[in-house]
């Protein structure tokens, strides 16, 4: 199983792996906002956490459709399905590798983009923390969409559309926890804990659903 994790990590940093593409897209989306909104520093710092979160959400969705499709194209998926290892575990490993390759770089890049949005240290820290906790949920939810659309050519946009409604709660609680850290009356912990709960819930349900979809893809 660790072999699968290591292989997928290697693939994500090699040519065509797409780990950097996600970060670049994230930076592009967030970096153009100050130009569009104008040099109103108060406004920027107020919308900052939301913009960073939306940027992260969109870039997390960007590479998801390739999660199983590359495996299917070269025939590896057949062999992954045939083994003794529980398929749920195999999918979980692939999700972890995908998050380490595509999600974690977004988390690491977020403080820099926070500076673009004139956010203070607390807001930057809170956004980074909520992204760290919330982005795995996006990967787990996305795995189900990627597994359903695995046999479709050019299923990329379809995966995003399938996955987006399920990802909205992650966005809501991620953003509200980030705001709660800077705006005094709102407590930080409740939305943050709900975000943690969402991630743990989908860490179980996502691989299960994806494994079921892959088993029945049947072709």
């Amino acid at each position, binding site marked *: *199983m660790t*072999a*699968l994790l*290591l*292989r997928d990590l*290697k*693939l994500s940093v*090699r*040519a*065509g*792996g797409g780990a950097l593409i996600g970060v670049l897209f994230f930076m592009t989306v967030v970096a153009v906002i100050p130009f569009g909104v104008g040099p109103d520093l108060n406004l920027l710092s107020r919308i900052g956490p939301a913009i960073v979160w939306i940027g992260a959400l969109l870039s997390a969705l960007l590479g998801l459709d390739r999660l199983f499709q590359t495996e299917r*194209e*070269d*025939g*590896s998926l*057949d*062999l992954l*399905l*045939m*083994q*003794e*290892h529980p398929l749920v575990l195999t999918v979980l490993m692939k999700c972890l590798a995908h998050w380490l390759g595509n999600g974690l770089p977004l988390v690491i890049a977020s403080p820099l983009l926070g500076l673009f949005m004139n956010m203070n240290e607390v807001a930057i820290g809170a956004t980074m923390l909520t992204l760290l906790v919330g982005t795995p949920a996006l990967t787990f939810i996305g795995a189900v969409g990627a597994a359903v659309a695995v046999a479709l050519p050019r299923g990329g946009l379809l995966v995003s559309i399938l996955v987006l409604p399920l990802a909205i709660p992650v966005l809501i609680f991620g953003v509200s926890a980030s705001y709660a850290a800077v705006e005094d009356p709102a407590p930080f912990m409740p939305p943050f804990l709900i975000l943690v709960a969402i991630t743990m819930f989908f860490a179980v349900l996502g691989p299960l659903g994806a494994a079921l979809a892959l088993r*029945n893809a*049947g*072709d």
Partner: protein
Amino acid sequence: MIKILMKVSVMRLLAENLGARRGEDLIFTDISFALGAGESLVLTGRNGSGKSTLLRVVAGLLHPETGRVTWVSESAESGMRAAEACHYLGHRNAMKAELSVFENLSFWKEFFGDVEGGKGISPGEAAETVGLGGIIHLPFGYLSAGQQRRMAFAKLLVAYRPVWILDEPTAALDVNAESIFTALINAHLSGGGIVLAATHQPLGLENARELKMAGFAGVAEGRW
């Protein structure tokens, strides 16, 4: 040559009344066979007659419409799927073009693990066995189609599986490579393995049984 240590044991791959559907059409019905240690079955028939479909059903990648595939062996725990005892070499090579041949083979070796009854050889030896020992450091994508096919075949050697399911193993191969493959398949058989292959070219296997696929069984019998 390939060295596989084998315990002599009772193993059988059983297929009972298999029928499969592709879309709306029944491709074949009522196919049964039993293969024991050292036996091989070669599927022949024209394009579209259902050879690949049958192989995918046996490998557990397609749900059969009727019937089932079972694997019987002394060492098998109850509830072991037949697919777990099989190597499947399909049309696609299941190797990553971005990774080197060595990385590919060692990943599969570790991920497959050995089924009880034998041991796989190291990636270096496997590449040597298919006659490409010197280029194991190259990215898989740099190899020619024939070399890629040979390396995909080397994948069968790095982990032990009693059953080999081969879908046109000799496509894109030169005569020399074909004879290497035949020797490897024969070695697997004499070591007590089972081979199930679909092919257009004669593989030159000793005492192989042949199953001729007619295709569109349902159409011929007026039921679909």
